[in-house]
């Protein structure tokens, strides 16, 4: 990029930046000031707070515009700050908007931006005026060729500073040109400086904080780890199924066939050995099946609802499943890692109920009441009194759920019923 292009780019950036700056300042101030004023009155606090959230929202949009401008024109990409956690219910949503720090930082930026925008406008004005002054020798020749005797007033140089001169003859346009060139150079130099200041300001106030960046990086890698672990376990189960389990089944079958043919052999010790080998192969097959099922229940490949049905069918206490979740990933089916966590939570909770609750009936429900989240609810009509003590099964469950920022809620008054609710994000990565 030539120096010339670069100068043009810097000046244009300042021109657009100051426009957005002025616009943003007025929009935000005209909503924020009445909003805050109404908030302190008793009568219209709610309206005031709503207006403040509108203002925060507008500041966020203006901030996004500034980031975009910076990325497009100067090629400096500042990532957006960490997105706001959506709140629960009307008040929760209001609260989460008001507490969203990057929103307030945007407001701060918009306010600080006003003096910056004034200076940016100044640099642009300087360059434009300078260009006009530089063009005087040409415009004199073009427009001042009036017939002799006509009396014209002198031309005045223009500029952002009050240091002008009157030009009344063509030779006098030369110093005007020099002044113009000075304005242009100063303007370009200032424009470069202001672009840098603006860039610093945007980076500092509108980008993600260091800690935020670290947190989102950790969240991302943790999600990868969770997904990886789930995929690895699934692979192990598949390898067992296609490898060891299949070979053992074939072995048991061959031993079974050998047993039948042994009826013609006289030596009873051979018969005993083959019988024992056959028994061991059958037991190993059953052990391996339990092991593989614990690693990754194959029914999960057909979806969480099907897997939970299977789980309910093998429960010692009669259990029913009601599932209201989408069947495909596009419609919002949970990620495989999340389904696995939900499945093992359900298995653990059913096992707990079987051991401690003396219940006659277990109800398993899965649904997506809150967008982006999967809810699993397990109710039993037992004696209650379940608690999340350290080292208990429920504590282990809470830890498992917390690896994806899930939540667990337990209601188990003495005398029952026990209701455990597990809430998991649909994706481990937390991207909505």
């Amino acid at each position, binding site marked *: 990029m030539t120096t010339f292009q670069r100068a043009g780019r810097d000046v244009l950036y300042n021109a657009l930046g100051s426009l957005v700056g002025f616009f943003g300042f007025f929009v935000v101030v005209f909503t924020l000031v009445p909003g805050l004023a109404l908030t302190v009155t008793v009568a219209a606090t709610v309206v005031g707070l709503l207006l403040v959230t509108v203002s925060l929202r507008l500041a966020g949009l203006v901030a996004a515009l500034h980031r975009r401008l910076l990325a497009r024109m100067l090629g400096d990409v500042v990532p957006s700050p960490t997105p706001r956690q959506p709140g629960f219910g009307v008040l929760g949503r209001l609260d989460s908007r008001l507490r969203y720090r990057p929103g307030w930082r945007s407001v701060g930026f918009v306010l600080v931006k006003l003096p910056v925008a004034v200076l940016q406008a100044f640099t642009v004005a300087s360059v434009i005026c300078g260009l006009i002054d530089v063009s005087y020798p040409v415009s004199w020749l073009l427009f001042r060729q009036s017939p002799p005797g006509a009396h014209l007033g002198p031309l005045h140089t223009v500029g952002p500073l009050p240091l002008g001169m009157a030009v009344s003859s063509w030779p006098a346009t030369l110093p005007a040109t020099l002044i113009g060139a000075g304005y242009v150079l100063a303007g370009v130099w200032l424009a470069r400086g202001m672009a840098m200041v603006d860039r610093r300001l945007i980076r500092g106030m509108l980008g993600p904080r260091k800690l935020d960046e670290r947190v989102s990086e950790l969240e991302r890698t943790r999600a990868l780890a969770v997904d990886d672990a789930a995929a690895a376990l699934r692979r192990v189960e598949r390898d067992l199924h296609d490898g060891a389990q299949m070979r053992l089944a074939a072995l048991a079958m061959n031993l079974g066939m050998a047993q039948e043919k042994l009826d013609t052999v006289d030596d009873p010790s051979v018969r005993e050995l083959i019988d024992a080998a056959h028994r061991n192969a059958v037991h190993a097959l059953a052990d391996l099946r339990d092991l593989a099922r614990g690693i990754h229940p194959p029914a999960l490949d057909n979806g969480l609802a099907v897997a939970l049905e299977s789980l309910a069918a*093998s429960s010692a206490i009669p259990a029913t499943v009601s599932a209201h979740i989408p069947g495909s990933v596009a419609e919002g089916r949970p990620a495989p890692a999340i389904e696995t966590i939900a499945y093992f939570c359900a298995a653990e909770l059913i096992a707990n109920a079987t051991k401690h609750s003396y219940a006659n009936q277990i109800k398993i429900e899965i649904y997506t009441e809150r967008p982006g989240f999967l809810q699993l609810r397990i109710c039993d009509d037992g004696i209650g009194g379940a608690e999340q003590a350290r080292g208990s099964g429920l504590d282990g469950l809470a830890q498992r759920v917390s690896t994806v920022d899930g939540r667990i809620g337990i209601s188990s008054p003495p005398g029952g019923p026990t209701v455990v609710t597990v809430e998991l994000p649909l994706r481990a990565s937390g991207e909505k």
Partner: protein
Amino acid sequence: MRVVIAEDAALLREGLIRLLEDRGHTVCAAVTDGGTLLAAVADHKPDVAVVDIRMPPTHTDEGIRAALTMRREFPGTGVLVFSQYIETSYSAQLLEGGAAGVGYLLKDRVANVAEFAAALERVAAGGTALDPEVVSQLFRASRRRGGIDSLTPRERQVLALMAEGRSNAGIAAELVVSGGAVEKHVASIFGKLGLPPDDSDNRRVLAVLRYLGG
């Protein structure tokens, strides 16, 4: 008996062929996925097909889907599904259209060659062969209605064997009792559960499964 086998693991496939041919049955075709299974069944019109559940390409439930298609399109051919796992949803789907000519066994059961062959013959003849695990799941699911609690332990054993699809003679052999004793137990069970008495094995299995499955 003419058999088609669908099993993607070569070791088991070869073993099954050998096992069946040793017993004088004919294996018309041995295939490795659901699509070719249906083609082979259409070609050979076998008495029964042995179908693995997890087969290529997705390794999830190809076998079940192929079995359900077979049940619809080739009602004359028995289907014995076998798998490393018993899944309730699969047994429910298989039994939806009745219990005639249906089998669902764990792969472990091939270890007992004689029993496996007998189960396959039952399915080929239009009978039923359910794995004891399927039956115990059905028992658990039906326990809340309480009827089963009124049975004696021996009667419960007999009921489970009936649900697996065994005939009176088969039950007598399994429990090492006389045929007459089994008949007495069966009559008592039907009386206690309020089921209509029926001599046909297949209708009897159906009645028991209906009772258990609700």
